[in-house]
């Protein structure tokens, strides 16, 4: 099974939550908080891209006359 949400994704999501909890609970300097914020925004963009921007493919698996399997792009107009 190769689910798209691999370990790396989960780690990044955890890091994002960690950043937020540091910003929410610790007294961090403005410099430090800006650095963390930037990191957080870039991680969340990356995760969102993976969820939203990456477009999956749609394929139809068809058999030809000899019974051989071939892949065809799915025609959205079918």
């Amino acid at each position, binding site marked *: 099974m190769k689910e798209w949400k691999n370990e790396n994704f989960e780690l990044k999501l955890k890091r994002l939550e960690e950043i937020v909890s540091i910003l929410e609970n610790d007294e961090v300097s*403005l410099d430090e908080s800006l650095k963390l914020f930037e990191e957080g925004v870039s991680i969340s963009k990356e995760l969102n891209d993976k969820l939203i921007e990456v477009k999956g493919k749609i394929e139809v698996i068809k058999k030809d006359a000899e019974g051989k399997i071939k892949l065809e792009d799915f025609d959205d107009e079918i």
Partner: protein
Amino acid sequence: MEDRDIIYKVSELNSEIKNLLGRGFSSVWVEGEISGVKRSSLGHIYFDLKDENSIISAVIFKWSLKNIDFEPENGVLVKVLGDVTIYDKQSKYQIVIKKALSLKYGPLQLRFEELKKKLMAEGLFDDERKKKIPAFPQNVAVITSLYGAAIRDIISIIKRRAKNINIFIFPVRVQGDGASDDIAMALKEANKKKYCIDVIILGRGGGSMEDLWAFNEEAVARAIAASGVPVISSVGHQTDFTISDFVADLRAATPSAAAEIITQGVIDTKNRISQIEKRLISSLKIIYQRIKLRFFKFINSNFYKNPFSIIEKNVMEFDNLYTSLNRAFDSRIKDLQSNLKNLSDRLKNLNPETPMKKGYTITKKGDTVIRTIDDITIGDVIEVIFSDGSAKSNVFEKIKKSEHEEAK
């Protein structure tokens, strides 16, 4: 009627046929399986009676329902008494049922119950067999007809909710001859490693029990059970249950529901990320506010507005103190001086020589200072001491002040 020259009007012909049917097929008994039950809003029940090869429309009018002691349901085998009649507006004939007897399930329903019993006994429906549906599938196989509503629904829901998912469509016939073989083959194909399928959605839209029958075939049930990839079965509507549903790892009420299930993980994660984003932004705002507040507290402080004010204040205080200290010191000195003068004045007056210089003398008899006339007697030698010398003299007269005079 044997006269070939007779030309009927359509309604006349239908009327003739109606009479013919009425004469020949009034109060006939017929045996068949109920299928396609529809209830009209007026309370009449329409359905088909059928056997393996043939079918006839049937109706039970509301007023005849009292003669039927069972619930007319799809798959029920019945023996009915009725009149065959023609509904001439549609040129369709039907049997109007006056009485009906249930003969328990028809062959289809019977086969369903038998297969269900058999597979259940084999443990094919056991919960322990159910594979977990992956929360974040990358590759999804859809086994259904290319031409039904199900494929449209599934694709549009997956693309709307999680467009990063790859969809592999395995087109099959979903009803009629060969459908069950198609489905079983597609299940086998979708399990091939080259596709890396994470989950299979098997299904079709709604239909009659006959339409959905392929999903009740043993071949399909066996292929689902043999699938290493988790299978979600979604056949027909909420109320339709098929053997596929029981064997599959999960039953979804409809194909749309199946698409929602496999994309729920993405939806949840999207929500989780957007929640975190909101917290990220608001936490930075709070930090900025906090620092701004500290900054303004400083900006508004007296020290920032006039940093010398503290020094000025101190200088003035010192000045005041210094002046009052000096003043206090001066006055103390003056007090001391005047005290001193006072004391020395008083001291001066206490010196016995001072009155002697004015003419006062001290009179002694021996070593004793004479303070009263009674201390001396006539003939005594007394010494009169002046400031600058002394004289010895004899007393020859004593005059004491009278009491009276003294009192004055």
